[in-house]
C-alpha cells in the first residue's frame, strides 16, 4: 500500500492543478477544523517515527515543544539530505513538492509556527525553484499567507539553501546555519524544543516525516498506526542503490523482508550480471554494514524485515539500523576495505572540527584505512582502528562521531578476515578482490 507515492506517476502532479484534482490539500481542510492539540494527538496515535535516521517518535517530539506565552515557535523542515546512499527526500521534493508543502502547513498549524523554514541541501540546486514555485502556487490558492482558508491561522514557508555541508543535517547545526552562523552543532541541552532557532522553541523534522503527516490526517492516526509491524508504523521510502538491477526510490510496507526487497521484481530486481550478494548497508552510510548471512536472517534465524526493530535485532553485534533508508548493496566484486575507506574519507571531510575526537579521529581512521587498502597496512593497524572508533563513539558533541565510528566498527566486526587478507597479501590485494569467501555461512557472533 502506497501512502506517499500513490500519485507520483500522475502527469503534472508537480503542479497545483493536478495535485489538487487528485485529492491534494484535503488534509489541510480537515486539520484546520481540528485543534492543534488534536492533530498532535493524531500524530501520537499514528506512532509515526522520525524518518531522518534516529527514528524518534514524532508525536512525542511535538509534545515536548515548549509553549511560553508571547514567544514565536518555529517548524523547520530538514531537507539537508546528505547521507551517502539516501536520496528519498530529493525524489519527494522533486516530484511531489505539494505533498511536502501540505504536510508543512498541517504541521505548522499543529505546532503554532507562523514562519516555517525548509533548509535544503546546497547541492540540490534545482529543487529550491520547484519548492518555491509550489509555495507560490499554494499561496495564490489561499493555502499559505494570512488567514489560511478563513481559519485565522497565518503561515509563511521560506526556503533556505545550505552551503553543502553534511553536518548541517544535524538539527542544531542546521539551526545555527539557518541563523546565518557557522554550521557547528550546539551542545545539548538545551534541546531545540526549548531553545532552537533564534533561541525560540523549534521542531526540526525530516521531509518524509512531514509528508507522512498528510496521510495520517487524511486517514486518521489510528488507521495509520495499524499499518506496519510493531512500533514501525506506516510506510517507508527506501532509496536503493549500489549493485542492483533496479536502483531507485521505493515505498515499502514495514513487513517486507530484506530478501524480497533486494531480489523481487517489484522492488530492486536482484543483483546484476548474475553476481551474488556480499553485503549491504540498510540505512544510509552511517549505519553498520551487514554481511549476507546476517542481512537476510537475524541471529534468531528469522527472516529479517525492513523495519526499525527487525533490522536492529541483536544490537550492533548482529544487527544494523533502518536509519534514513539509504539502502546500499554490495555484490561479490566489491572490496569492503575500499568501501570503508571511502566512507571514512567522507566523514573526515565532513567533520565540523568542533570537538577533538571527531576532528582528529576521523582523519586518522581514513589514513590507516588508506594504508591498508594500498597494501601498506599491518596487522596491528586493524586493532588500532578498532581502538580509535571505540574512543570516538559516544564521546562527541553530535552523532557525526558515532556515524563515523559505526561503519568502521561494523566492517572490522564482520569482515575482519578481508582486512587481514589485505594486510597479508599486499600485492595480490591490489589486483583482485577478496570476493565472497564464507559470508554465506553464518559466523559465530563475537560479543563486543
Amino acid at each position, binding site marked *: 500500500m502506497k501512502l506517499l507515492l500513490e500519485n507520483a506517476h500522475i502527469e503534472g502532479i508537480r503542479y497545483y492543478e493536478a495535485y489538487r484534482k487528485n485529492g491534494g490539500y484535503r488534509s489541510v481542510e480537515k486539520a484546520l477544523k481540528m485543534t492543534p492539540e488534536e492533530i498532535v494527538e493524531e500524530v501520537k496515535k499514528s506512532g509515526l517515527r522520525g524518518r531522518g535516521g534516529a527514528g524518534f517518535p514524532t508525536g512525542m517530539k511535538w509534545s515536548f515543544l515548549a509553549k511560553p506565552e508571547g514567544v514565536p515557535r518555529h517548524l523547520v523542515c530538514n531537507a539537508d539530505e546528505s547521507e551517502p546512499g539516501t536520496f528519498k527526500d530529493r525524489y519527494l521534493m522533486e516530484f511531489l513538492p505539494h505533498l511536502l508543502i501540505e504536510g508543512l502547513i498541517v504541521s505548522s498549524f499543529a505546532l503554532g509556527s507562523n514562519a516555517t523554514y525548509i533548509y535544503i541541501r546546497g547541492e540540490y540546486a534545482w529543487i529550491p525553484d520547484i519548492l518555491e514555485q509550489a509555495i507560490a502556487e499554494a499561496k495564490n490558492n489561499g493555502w499559505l499567507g494570512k488567514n489560511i482558508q478563513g481559519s485565522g491561522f497565518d503561515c509563511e514557508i521560506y526556503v533556505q539553501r545550505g552551503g553543502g*555541508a553534511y*553536518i548541517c543535517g544535524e538539527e542544531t547545526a542546521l539551526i545555527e546555519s539557518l541563523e546565518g552562523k*557557522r554550521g557547528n552543532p550546539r*551542545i545539548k541541552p538545551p534541546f531545540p524544543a526549548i531553545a532552537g532557532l533564534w533561541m525560540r522553541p523549534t521542531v526540526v523534522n525530516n521531509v518524509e516525516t512531514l509528508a507522512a503527516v498528510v496521510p495520517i490526517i487524511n486517514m486518521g492516526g489510528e488507521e495509520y498506526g495499524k499499518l506496519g509491524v510493531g512500533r514501525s508504523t506506516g510506510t517507508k521510502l527506501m532509496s536503493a542503490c549500489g549493485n542492483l538491477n533496479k536502483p531507485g526510490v521505493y515505498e515499502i510496507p514495514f513487513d517486507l523482508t530484506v530478501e524480497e526487497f533486494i531480489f523481487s521484481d517489484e522492488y530492486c530486481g536482484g543483483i546484476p550480471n548474475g553476481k551474488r550478494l556480499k553485503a549491504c548497508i540498510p540505512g544510509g552510510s552511517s549505519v553498520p554494514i551487514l554481511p549476507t548471512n546476517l542481512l537476510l536472517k537475524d541471529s534468531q534465524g528469522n527472516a529479517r524485515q525492513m523495519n526499525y526493530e527487525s533490522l536492529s535485532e541483536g544490537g550492533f553485534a548482529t544487527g544494523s539500523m533502518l536509519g534514513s533508508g539509504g539502502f546500499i548493496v554490495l555484490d561479490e566484486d566489491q572490496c569492503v576495505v575500499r568501501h570503508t575507506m571511502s566512507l571514512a574519507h567522507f566523514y*573526515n*571531510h*565532513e*567533520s*565540523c*572540527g*568542533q*570537538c*577533538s*575526537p571527531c*576532528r*582528529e*579521529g*576521523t*582523519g*586518522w581512521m581514513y*589514513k590507516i584505512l588508506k594504508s591498508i587498502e594500498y597494501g601498506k597496512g599491518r596487522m596491528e593497524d586493524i586493532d*588500532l582502528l578498532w581502538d580509535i572508533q*571505540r*574512543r*570516538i563513539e*559516544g*564521546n*562527541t*558533541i553530535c552523532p557525526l562521531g558515532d556515524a563515523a565510528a559505526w561503519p568502521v566498527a561494523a566492517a572490522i566486526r564482520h569482515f575482519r578476515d578481508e582486512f587481514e587478507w589485505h594486510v597479508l597479501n599486499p600485492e595480490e590485494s591490489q589486483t583482485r578482490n577478496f570476493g565472497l569467501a564464507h559470508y554465506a555461512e553464518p559466523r559465530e557472533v563475537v560479543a563486543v
Partner: protein
Amino acid sequence: MSEQPNIKVTIDNITIEVAPGTTILEAARQIGGEVAPPTMCYYSKLKGSGGKCRTCLVEVNKGSEKDPRPMPKLVASCRTGVMDGMEVKSMTSEKVIDARKGVTEFLLLNHPLDCPVCDQAGECHLQDLSYENGAATTRYEYDRRTFEPEDIGPHIQLHMNRCIMCFRCVFTADQLTETREHGILDRGDHAKISTCISKALDNDFIGNVIDVCPVGALTDKTFRFKNRVWFTKPVDAHRNCSNPKCCGEARLWMRGEEVYRVTARKDEWGEVATASNGQTGWICDECRFEKKQTSDWTIEGPTKVNRHSVIAQGHYQGKVGTATQPILIDEVIGKRPKLTLDIHKVSEVNKPEIHLSEIEGPAHSDDFK
C-alpha cells in the same frame, strides 16, 4: 524571589552541596584537587565556552534523586548541570580514564612536538594533560597537519600548527573587545584560527587571547624566545591604568630587575583570576605589551605558585610562596628509584649551588666558573 536550597551532588564518593544551576565541573572544582576533570576548552569566565575538547567527560551513574537512571553516555561535565542526588564518577571510573586517554591522544595527534622551542612550555595545559593522561609514544605515523603561517600583528604570534581548536580566543574577542577580527575558517581537521585577510588584530584588549590560549598557539611576540618561563620569577604588581576596563593588576615575569613579560593573574585552574574590584582580571594591551619597566609598576610581592610545578621547581622551595613539599618517594612507593646519572658529577657547567634565578641578566658561562 526566594532563595533556592542547595542541592547535593556526589562526585567520586565525595558529597558536596552546591547552588542549583552549577555544572558538574564547577561542583568538582569546589571539591578541588584531582577530582576536578581537566579542561582544555572550558573557561569559566567566558560565556558559551566548553563542550568541545571532551577532556572533561565524566560518567553519571545516577541522574538524580527523582530519576535515578544512569546517563547512557559519558557527558561533558563543563556543560552538564547538576541535579539533586546526582552521582558522578570522574577519577574513579575506568571508562572516564580511558576516554580521557583517548581524547589526549587525539589532541596530540597533530600537535607538533616542539615544546623545546615553544614559549608556552612550562605553563601549557596540553603538557599537563599529556603528562597525566597521555601515552609515552604516539601511535600516529603519518605526517602532521601543518598550516601556512599567518601574521596577525606586532604583538601576538599565531602558531596555527599548535592550535587545539578550543575556541577560547574567539569567545574572548567576542566578549571583551568591540570588534572581533579573527574567527574559525574551514572545517574539520583543517579548520583554523585566522583573520582570513592577514589583518593585524588591533584592539586594546586583544592581548588577553594569549592568556586564555591553553597551548602555544597564541603567544606574546614581545616575549618570544626571550626566556623560558621557569627561569623567570612571577611577581604580582599593579599600576594605575588609564583604561577604565583594565583592572591594572598583573603578573610580571622577571629575571633579575628585568621584566620579561606581563600577563594577567591566574587562579589555580589556569584561568584569569578575579581582580580586587570583583571583576575578571583582564588587562589591556598597554599594560601587557608596553609597560616593561619595574618603575611602571607597584610590586606587591612574589606570586604564590602552586599548580604549574615546573615554575615552582627550585625557585621558591624553602624561601617564599606556598609550593608544597612533594610527598617523599619512599612514602609513596616504598623505595627510591636508582639515580642512574647525577648531572653535577659529569658537568662542570651546571653547578647546583649557583641559582639561575639569582643571576642578573641572561646566564653566561662566566657565571659557572
